[in-house]
């Protein structure tokens, strides 16, 4: 018997050593395993409106310009000319190819941009269409007064694109790095307007990677795009993207080596990771986390109530003790890091609208609430605060629930919802107070302030101010400090109405294994792995 066991063990040993040899001989393709977070709503450049989809699109598509190491660099455009005092742009395209070998033409851009302005787009109009309102005719097309074909973007020939702007826009080149401005292939889109971007057969792209597999709710695979114009410098052969949503699962997977990159960690672990881990990064991000008030619903239709709620939040306690990721207290909607024409930080110049970083303004809040008819919170209905379970939302909500209870004597029911359900509820106005976040899509305050235009698809507070619309629209026809004066005035208008209670300015807490080199995160918080390497 003993002999048999020994024999068996020897056999097992030999077999396993064979297996080990077999594994070592094979040349393993260089694969990056990336946790992409919750399943993206869309991978279609024009239809996407969130960072989770933006991360993928940023690696599969490429716009006229792109951001490298925080600098603007040419992408599909070889060169460009700016004429007519900054209102006409002419882009000359590179000889770049799509992943199926066809050349990238100016027509692809024209098609994509006009597509974004189509109010009757199948399957739904682009929520980010207002990103193109700088282009002549775009706003009119979205509003339906002209046809999308009248938008002033024209392919002069295969490789030349002419764009006419409404007014000189100093950051127009930056805008062209954004996903709404990325080209798509008309023949592919028309095959399946709703699903082409998720299906590897039709998801033809022009960036460093191309989608080769998509498993709903589970994972996706990006493979190197051999036809990419700079393919020689693209080192990674494959990116495996996993849709792990829960931070604790992410961290476990990361620590077990199952993924190389995670974009979030459980907040409770941040102090430890900050202290011990060289592969833990806190990256600055230009974005604001805020609570949206449904301004159509009682009692939140009263600005006094909204102000009282906002003033009571002790933001310092939240960033220092709850989120702990070196976030900054938010005292206005436009985040820190955006400069005006004179080089001053927009946030610092605009002031704090009576929002103190700590709860110093709680007395004023009590007075306001009493003035609104709810002294000491008496008679105040129990409102519901909704958020999704991602990140620190639950912890922040619990802390704020307590602050409101303690300072104002009002009860709030907090309810954690699944991401998809939450978005449905928010966009359909089916909420009282909701947690929201907005990160800049380009480095200018308009990226934030555009959200609250009365006709913006993202104005989920349902706030309607003609004066605000006018200010923003005027600002788009101006340049210099005059333009910023309008923007300052606009922000003051929305903050005095307190349609949102700003809470904090985001940072990104990410972990990337030390052997992954040259990865990038754009200033606007999108991952870019085009030139990333994996060191053996």
């Amino acid at each position, binding site marked *: 018997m003993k002999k048999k066991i020994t024999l068996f063990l020897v056999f097992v040993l030999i077999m396993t050593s064979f297996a080990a040899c077999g594994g070592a001989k094979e040349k393993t393709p260089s694969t990056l395993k990336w946790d992409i977070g919750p399943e993206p709503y869309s991978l279609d450049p024009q239809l996407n409106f969130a960072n989770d989809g933006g991360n993928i699109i940023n690696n599969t598509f490429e716009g006229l310009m792109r951001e490298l190491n925080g600098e603007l660099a040419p992408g599909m455009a070889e060169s460009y000319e700016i004429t007519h005092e900054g209102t006409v742009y002419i882009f000359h395209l590179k000889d770049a190819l799509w992943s199926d070998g066809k050349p990238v033409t100016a027509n692809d851009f024209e098609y994509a941009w006009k597509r974004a302005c189509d109010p009757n787009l199948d399957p739904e109009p682009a929520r980010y269409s207002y990103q193109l309102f700088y282009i002549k005719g775009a706003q009119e097309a979205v509003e339906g007064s002209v046809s999308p074909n009248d938008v002033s973007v024209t392919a002069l020939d295969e490789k030349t694109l002419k764009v006419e702007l409404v007014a000189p826009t100093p950051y127009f080149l930056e805008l062209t790095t954004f996903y709404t401005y990325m080209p798509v292939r008309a023949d592919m889109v028309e095959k399946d307007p709703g699903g082409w971007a998720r299906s590897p057969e039709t998801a033809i792209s022009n960036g460093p990677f191309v989608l080769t597999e998509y498993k709903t709710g589970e994972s996706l695979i990006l493979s190197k795009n051999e036809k990419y114009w700079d393919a020689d410098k693209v080192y990674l052969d494959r990116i495996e993207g996993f849709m792990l949503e829960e*931070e*604790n699962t992410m*961290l476990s997977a990361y620590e077990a080596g199952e993924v190389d990159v995670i974009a979030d960690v*459980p*907040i*409770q*672990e941040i*102090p*430890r990771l900050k202290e011990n881990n060289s592969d833990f990064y806190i990256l600055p991000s230009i974005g604001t986390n805020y609570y949206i008030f449904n301004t159509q619903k009682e009692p939140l239709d009263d600005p006094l109530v909204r102000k009282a709620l906002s003033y009571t939040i*002790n933001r310092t*306690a*939240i960033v*220092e*003790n*709850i989120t702990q990721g070196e976030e900054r207290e938010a005292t206005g909607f436009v985040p820190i890091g955006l400069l005006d024409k004179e080089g001053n930080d927009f946030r610092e110049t605009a002031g704090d609208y009576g929002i103190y970083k700590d709860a110093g303004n709680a007395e004023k809040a009590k007075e306001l609430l009493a003035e609104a008819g709810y002294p000491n919170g008496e008679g105040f209905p129990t409102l519901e605060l909704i958020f999704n*379970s991602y990140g620190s939302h*639950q*912890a922040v*909500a*619990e*802390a704020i*629930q*307590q602050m409101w209870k303690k300072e104002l004597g009002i009860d709030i*029911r*907090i*309810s*954690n919802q699944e991401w998809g359900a939450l978005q449905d509820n928010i966009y359909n106005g089916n909420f009282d107070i909701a947690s929201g976040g907005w990160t800049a899509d380009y480095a200018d305050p308009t990226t934030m302030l555009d959200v609250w235009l009365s006709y913006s698809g993202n104005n989920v507070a349902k706030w309607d101010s003609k004066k605000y619309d006018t200010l923003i629209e005027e600002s788009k026809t101006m340049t210099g400090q005059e333009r910023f004066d309008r923007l300052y005035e606009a922000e003051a208008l929305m903050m005095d109405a307190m349609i949102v209670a700003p809470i904090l300015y985001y940072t990104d807490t990410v972990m990337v294994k030390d052997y992954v080199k040259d990865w990038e995160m754009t200033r606007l918080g999108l991952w870019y792995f085009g030139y990333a390497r994996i060191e053996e």
Partner: protein
Amino acid sequence: MNNISPDLWQPITYEDRDKERIARPSMTFWQDVWRRIKQNKSAMLGFVVIMVILLLAIVGPWLSQYSYWEQDLSNTSQSPSFEHWFGTDGHGRDLYVRVLHGARISLAVGLIATLVNFVVGVLYGGISGYFGGNIDSVMMRVVDIISTIPLVLYAILLMVVLGPGLLSIIIALCSVYWVRMARIVRGQILSLREQEFIFAAKSLGASPFRILVRHLIPNTMGTIIVTITLMIPEAIFTEAFLSFIGLGISAPKASWGSMTSDAIGGLRSYPYQLFFPGAALCITMMSFNIFGDGLRDALDPRLRK
């Protein structure tokens, strides 16, 4: 009469007479059960622990200067100390008070759910078993249908309709758990109703309700009690599970399930935040299970040695 011989008419000896005497005082069934369960050390331990937890849940929070909802954001995630016996959580709330508050919630859910199950299950099963025939068939098919729908589904639907909270959990538990009790009671009554004492009661003109409540159900009490003691930990666990996946009670109220769920994120840095509510849940569940086991042994005449 001739067959009886005179020598049969002998006075018995004292020895034989004493054999018939009842030497010890007679005991009722429940006294006997109590005697037996007292000998079962682990079951008694379980019982004592349950009592201690019950007591702590009732008076424990008053023994502490903290409340379960009061946050102290300058004092978050403190390790256990004299000031905070179980440490504090990520919002600076005292974990000791929160664990005891969780005990209140868990025990309340367990007891209320079980009480409802007892009343509904016993009556339903009793009626079904006693009347038999078509009534039985219809009633048992209803039970079959209810037991095919998973509890979590009920729970989610109720949360949508009623909003998350203690009430929804209790309603969810109550609407499903009684079916097992009904089946057990029905099985018992099916066999009991054929016995002579029921026949006697019927002959004397007792109403079906009286027979059910006065004769049949008391005779199934042993089984019912065992089922109940095993059902309580199940209800507690289900509540913890629902709270853990976020369907349970909402903040700032705490249950063991929601506390473990909160603590999972900091598992690597603050394991004690998971340990205390987890341990409380384990100890409670185990105590009820051990006690229920002992009770079954004591109640079941076939298991007597």
